[in-house]
């Protein structure tokens, strides 16, 4: 791969310091072409610029966007018109962009609403949406977003910086019932959201944050842009947004219909309309797909879906995700005060076997840190932990438990988790540890979700679910750092806290990777938690459906979707 130095130098001249850093990394081969595209997108480099740089570095002209998986990518000329019928989880509460916290609700928000950036889970790349470009300040503490021109809300009013400022001030206000606070809390306050001019908004962060654009992207599903002054409580009457589809009707517990927005800034969608039917459990959705009542199941889990997983009539879109299960062991309670005991538990697990048995292979093995394979910053040079019963027994003996011990694992009734708890207990029995299981319903298990009022946070061993995020920040901070609100393991480690702070602030990928490696090694050594696997996001369509773009968070984007006869 020949590099055209002169061409590259010319491009360097037009680029910022950080951009030049990525160009160096790419030229030196430390960054793959795909990683370069991803990282470049995060710091706001344009696709044309990145394409030119890749070309100068002696590559083909293939630019990341065409790398979508085959089942979802458009093949041939799209068919115009028609209605796409989709099955989705029923929104469990009012569809209010401020409060939505469930799969069904966030899927609805993304039908008519749009974000500043779009985390394309198929291409594993952050793409412009309502913002066309973004730039960090030198240290990553201020991020400036340029807004797309000519965008109109469904009521005809134009999108301006005021709307964006209003949206993020509402979302980041601790006086509001904002669910986005779990992402934006401690990152930005209402005062930090500032209008620069009519089409530019700046976010002045509480602390440098290298991955901030993800927090204003579709990953932060509450962050659809609403018109300035809009009453969030009324949103479910209008579904007002800027997206490719407009609301036709929404009926609680029943379904929602959308029609194409002919004046969409990105051009009208192929479909005339979409029709969502709400379900409260998975089995009827699978039956509906098989019976031809729907064309798409927005999201399902592998357990109980064998009939469509191994059937050529259906296309399965499998998305790498950071959705995972976390087994915490109380670092402040015997016998888990000794890291060797925690390591022994982790070493007893047959992870590839678990992925196969519990997820029918639709997942990635975990290495006891939140760095999922999908994150570009994940340091893959850290060795993967594998099952080693002999070493586990040896560690237990050294820690003073040659005959094992007995303890209780508390967990929740959710998806495959009770089965996973069973598998963990069986694995532990091989090293002489007896684990009694206590499976609770989710309300009892989470309790008030504060220390002292929650079985999840207080149990000596606890197994919980964490949904997909675009960046590992929340996973690194909330359940593992000393001041974190969900530190079920009571892990307190100053070195760790320091490394995470540096990681969150780091803007360039190489620094992030180096720090990630240190964090991963530290977590393997200390093993406050076990993460056995990451679960792929699954979407099913009939073979006649093309161009759907789902996310691992159970949203689905249908601008480019169409149906062939």
């Amino acid at each position, binding site marked *: 791969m020949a590099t055209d130095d002169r061409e590259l130098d010319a491009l360097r001249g037009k680029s910022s310091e950080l951009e030049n850093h990525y160009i160096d990394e790419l030229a030196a081969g430390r960054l793959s072409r795909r990683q370069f595209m991803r990282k470049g997108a995060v710091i706001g480099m344009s696709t044309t610029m990145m394409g030119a740089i890749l070309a100068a570095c002696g590559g083909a002209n293939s630019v990341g966007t065409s790398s979508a998986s085959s089942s979802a990518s458009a093949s041939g000329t799209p068919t115009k018109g028609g209605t796409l019928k989709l099955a989705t989880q029923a929104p*469990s*509460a*009012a569809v*209010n962009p401020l*409060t939505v*916290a*469930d799969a069904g609700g966030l899927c609805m928000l993304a039908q008519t609403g749009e974000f500043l950036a779009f985390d394309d889970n198929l291409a594993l790349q952050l793409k412009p949406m309502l913002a066309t470009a973004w730039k960090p300040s030198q240290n990553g503490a201020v991020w400036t977003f340029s807004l797309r021109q000519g965008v109109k809300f469904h009521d005809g009013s134009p999108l301006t910086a005021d709307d964006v400022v209003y949206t993020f001030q509402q979302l980041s206000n*601790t*006086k*509001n*019932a*904002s*669910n986005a*606070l*779990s992402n934006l*809390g401690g990152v930005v306050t209402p005062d930090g959201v500032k209008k620069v001019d009519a089409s530019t908004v700046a976010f002045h962060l509480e602390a440098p944050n290298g991955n901030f654009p993800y927090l204003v992207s579709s990953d932060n599903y509450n962050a659809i842009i609403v018109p300035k002054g809009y009453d969030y*409580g009324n949103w*479910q009457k209008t579904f007002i947004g800027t997206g490719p589809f407009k609301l036709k009707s929404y009926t*609680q*517990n*029943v379904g929602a219909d959308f029609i194409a927005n002919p004046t969409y800034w990105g051009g009208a969608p192929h479909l005339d309309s979409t029709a969502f*039917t709400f*379900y*409260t*459990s998975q*089995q*009827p959705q699978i*039956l*509906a797909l*098989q*019976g031809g*009542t729907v064309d798409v199941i927005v999201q399902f889990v592998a357990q109980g879906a064998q009939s469509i997983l191994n059937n050529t009539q259906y296309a399965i879109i499998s998305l790498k995700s950071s959705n995972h299960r976390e087994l915490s062991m109380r670092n402040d309670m015997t016998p888990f005060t000794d890291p060797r005991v925690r390591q022994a538990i982790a070493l007893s697990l047959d992870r590839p076997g678990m992925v196969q048995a519990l997820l029918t292979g639709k997942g990635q093995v975990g290495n006891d840190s939140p760095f999922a394979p999908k994150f570009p910053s994940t340091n893959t040079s850290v060795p993967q932990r594998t099952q080693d019963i002999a070493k586990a027994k040896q560690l237990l003996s050294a820690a003073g438990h040659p005959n094992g011990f007995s303890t209780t694992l508390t967990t929740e009734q959710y998806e495959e988790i009770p089965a996973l708890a069973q598998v963990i207990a069986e694995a532990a029995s091989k090293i002489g540890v007896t684990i009694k299981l206590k499976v609770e319903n*989710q*309300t*009892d298990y*989470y*309790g*008030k*979700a*504060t220390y002292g009022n929650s079985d*999840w946070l207080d149990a000596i061993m606890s197994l919980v679910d964490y949904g997909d995020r675009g960046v590992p920040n929340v996973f690194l901070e909330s359940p593992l750092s000393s001041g974190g*609100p*969900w530190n079920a393991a009571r892990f307190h480690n100053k070195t760790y806290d320091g490394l995470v702070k540096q990681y969150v602030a780091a803007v360039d990928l190489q620094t992030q990777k180096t720090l990630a490696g240190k964090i991963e090694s530290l977590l393997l050594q200390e093993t406050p938690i076990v993460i056995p696997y990451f679960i792929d996001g699954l979407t099913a369509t009939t073979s006649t459906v093309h161009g759907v773009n789902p996310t691992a968070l159970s949203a689905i984007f249908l601008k480019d979707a169409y149906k062939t006869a």
Partner: protein
Amino acid sequence: MLVFILKRVGLGLITLWILSVIVFFAAQVLPGDPARSILGPLAAPSAVTALSHQLGTDKPVIEQYWTWITHFVTGNPGNSYQYQAPIGPLLTTALVNSLKLAAVAFILVVPLGIIGGVVAALNIGKPLDRVLSVFGLSAVVIPELVSGIILILIFGIWLNVLPIEASTPPGSSIGTQLYHLILPAIPLVLILFGYIQQMARAGTAEALASDYARTATLKGLPRGVMIRRHILRNSLLPTITVIATQTGYLIGGLVLVETLFHYNGIGSLIYNAANNKDFPMLEAGVLTIGIVYMVATLSADILYSLLNPRIRYQGVE
């Protein structure tokens, strides 16, 4: 008769009020709170506090109950916490759906059950009686979920002759709606058939063995006329009781069937409300079922007295 009905209605109102109190305080014992169930377990505490305040669930329990009941008696059931929308339309849609499904199930099961019971009683001890009784009793113990999935697989996917979704698009004709309700009604028919068949069988057998039946036979009435005029009427009495007592189940207890066949009924509505501590919705739902149940038992009592002159006007004269 009028006094009897008025008395029953009065007692009914008191029962409903006690029911509302029980539901309210029982709901307080349930874990969780509405704001947290809306915002999810990982929501920021400040957000939960803000939402609780907005919903009014941070007020004292008695005050919440008082606000609710004063609105309720004036005909305003209020807003659902969970859906942030008026309860009236949500509940009406669900109730009408549930009534439709129950009606289809009743229309199918009542004649089948009574005929099955009478035929069994007429052939008492013979193989036909055995077959009917064993089938009926076995069907009672098959959970709706199991029979429902088997039915969907056979009729919906394999043979592809019946729709597997109970819901129909808005504005569908009555015919289409009934067509969609056939499959979901069958699991209910299977469960109820055994009850009704056994009651009808016992009633018929008893009537057949009675003095008046013997007299009728001895005075030379043809068997068909005897059964129609004397036996059926008496054997129906216990059957009515069974049907009335099953109404509550048929209207409010069909969470599994509603989920499986994707039907927006009142059972799922109440179940969700209880899960999310959506108190106004829960109260309204439970009271609605209570009213339906009371109307059903009252109608049964009236029907009973019409069919059986012996107990007519008992409480009055």
